[in-house]
């Protein structure tokens, strides 16, 4: 029998015992719904945490050090394959090379220095940190007062709330005001290429900065920035200021130093999945690197286990529903015994009969899957509404904890059809085996 005929007959048969088939299909739908709702929750939580992590900047950043840097995290590595190699310094040339590597979004130095900030007649000593313009998507700025830097080199500042409170009891009034940053500018001495003559002078400078925002949490511009900054300026501006930094003095006494170098550079990778490749490429340039890739891997493993458990519990209902299919189809065989006999007498092969029952199981699986996914979407929406309401009452921003992506919905429907077909194996085989003479003998 051809497929369209098969499907037509199957649908016709399903319409006959309407209530029973509808109930069986509903059973599958509930099974699929419970499975999908569970997995939606798993996926939703994973996305929630994943977004947080991606936006934290922890996982798309690689910190690069000069080789054999005492502070490096890769000392064992460095010792193993480069003992006699001379120190690779982080020069502007190396920085340009890293910028041109594939998948690298940006390379920026970590700029941090301590200095004095003045507002009206209040003066405070504080630490200043550079923030790359790309940090504007960092979640720390979600609930900031004011706004992020208007451009990558804007002469603007963002204050940390505690520090702003030190300047004035009404920190919000600072937004739009101008603060004065006093800093130490370094100017390299002319060396005529003689490394031993290299050095610099230091001069006091002032810079007027407009306060554009105040943050509650510590933003994250690169993973080493754990040390708190209290006042943030755009990294590009910070570089231009050419300030004296903590590391500058050490660089100055290094024998190899002959010109501008960086203590460390942060490489931001365009796609977190490419971190390992980029890290490899930078190591091949003879530099030491560090990223928190391994931490995400154990986190992903954790979520796979969570999904697995949610999936197992969700599948139980579907397994019960599949027994319903077996039951319904076996009943149908008993009822339609004579009809199967007639079909065989009219020339239906065993295969035709088997496929007909399979088609009926498959159609119930398809319908059950569709209804089930819709139900699951409803359950997910209810969960999100519930948690949103709860979070709102706790004065927290709403989050969606349940997520039903297209792939989950469509594979649930495919899964539902497969489970139904498996449930149909026994009834279909039994119907196909039915002896037509027996089936036709009795009224």
């Amino acid at each position, binding site marked *: 029998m051809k497929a369209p005929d098969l499907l037509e007959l199957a649908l016709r048969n399903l319409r006959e015992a309407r209530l029973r088939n509808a109930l069986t299909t509903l059973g599958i739908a509930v099974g699929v719904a419970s499975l999908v709702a569970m997995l939606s929750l798993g996926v939703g939580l994973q996305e929630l945490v994943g977004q947080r992590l991606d936006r934290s900047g922890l996982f798309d950043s690689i910190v690069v050090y000069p080789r054999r840097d005492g502070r490096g995290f890769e000392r064992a590595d460095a010792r193993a394959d480069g003992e006699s190699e001379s120190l690779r310094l982080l020069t502007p040339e190396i920085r340009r090379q890293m910028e041109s590597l594939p998948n690298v979004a940006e390379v920026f130095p970590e700029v941090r220095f301590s200095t004095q900030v003045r507002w009206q007649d209040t003066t405070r000593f504080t630490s200043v940190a550079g923030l790359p313009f790309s940090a504007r998507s960092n979640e720390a700025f979600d609930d900031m007062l004011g706004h992020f830097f208007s451009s990558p080199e804007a002469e603007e500042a963002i204050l940390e709330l505690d520090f702003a409170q030190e300047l004035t009891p009404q920190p919000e009034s600072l937004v739009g005001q101008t603060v004065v940053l006093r800093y130490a500018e370094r100017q390299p001495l002319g060396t005529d290429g003689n490394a031993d003559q290299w050095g610099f002078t230091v001069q006091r400078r002032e810079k007027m900065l407009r306060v554009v925002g105040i943050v509650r949490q510590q933003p994250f511009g690169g993973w080493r920035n754990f040390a708190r900054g209290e006042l943030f300026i755009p990294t590009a501006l910070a570089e231009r200021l050419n300030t004296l930094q903590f590391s500058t003095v050490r660089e100055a006494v290094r024998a190899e130093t002959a010109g501008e170098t960086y203590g460390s550079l942060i490489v931001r990778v365009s796609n977190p999945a490419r971190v390992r490749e980029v890290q490899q490429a930078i190591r091949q340039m003879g530099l030491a690197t560090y990223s928190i890739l391994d931490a995400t891997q154990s986190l992903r493993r954790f979520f796979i286990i969570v999904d697995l458990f949610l999936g197992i519990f969700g599948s139980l209902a579907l397994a019960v529903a599949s027994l319903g299919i077996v039951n319904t189809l076996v009943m149908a065989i008993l009822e339609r015994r004579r009809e199967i006999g007639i079909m065989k007498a009219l020339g239906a092969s065993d*295969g035709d009969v088997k496929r007909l029952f399979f088609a009926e199981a498959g159609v119930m699986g398809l319908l059950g899957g569709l209804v089930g996914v819709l139900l699951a979407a409803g359950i997910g929406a209810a969960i999100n509404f519930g948690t949103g309401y709860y979070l709102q009452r706790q004065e927290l921003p709403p989050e969606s904890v349940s997520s039903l992506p297209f792939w989950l919905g469509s594979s649930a429907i495919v899964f539902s059809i497969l489970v139904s077909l498996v449930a149909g194996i026994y009834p279909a085989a039994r119907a196909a085996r039915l002896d037509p003479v027996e089936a036709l003998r009795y009224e």
Partner: protein
Amino acid sequence: MTENSNIIRTEDLARYYRMGPSVIRAVDGVSLEIARGEFVALLGSSGSGKSTLLNLLAGLDRPTRGRIQVAGRDLSTLSREELAAYRRHQVGMVFQAFNLVPRMTLEENVELPLRFAEVERSERTQRVQQALARVGLLHRLGHRPSELSGGEQQRAALARALVNRPSILLADEPTGNLDSRTGEEILNLIAEWNRTLGMTVVLVTHERPLAERYAQRILQMADGKLVTNGRAQ
């Protein structure tokens, strides 16, 4: 030469059933030949084995022993799949109980064999209408069997048996559930097809007068064996 003129040929054909400790010899060593285009009646009382013989000819059942050749093929050597194809293309069947599918309309019932034979949809409609017109039920196309009289149901069953243009029609007590006048109508139709379409007919019945009136030859069965094999008067 027998291969050409005889469409059906059995040799020492037997079908035994096991029923608990005893063995029922439903068909026990039947050898017969039926010529192409012949109208043969299988006459016998109930339990004589005539229906079992018919089921063997239809390829619905397999012999315990012996050979059964139809159109030059030995049915006992065919696979289940091949037997189904044989039923689909060579054989049309009608039963005492009509055996229409009750939840399908007449049109759907008659269309069923065409679906199994994978006939194109466009051709199907035409052939269904032709077959129903032949039995005078074209106006009942959309009715369900329960809405029809017994005679009409059996005519629909005949249309269904005819629709695949089989070379053999096997009829198992087709008039058993009908009054005598309606029964005659049915047999007249069968006899007409035997004449005009050259269809070989094997009619199972326990009514000798009917057999004598319609069949060219009567095979009488008792206890699974043929007792006479002669011309009808």
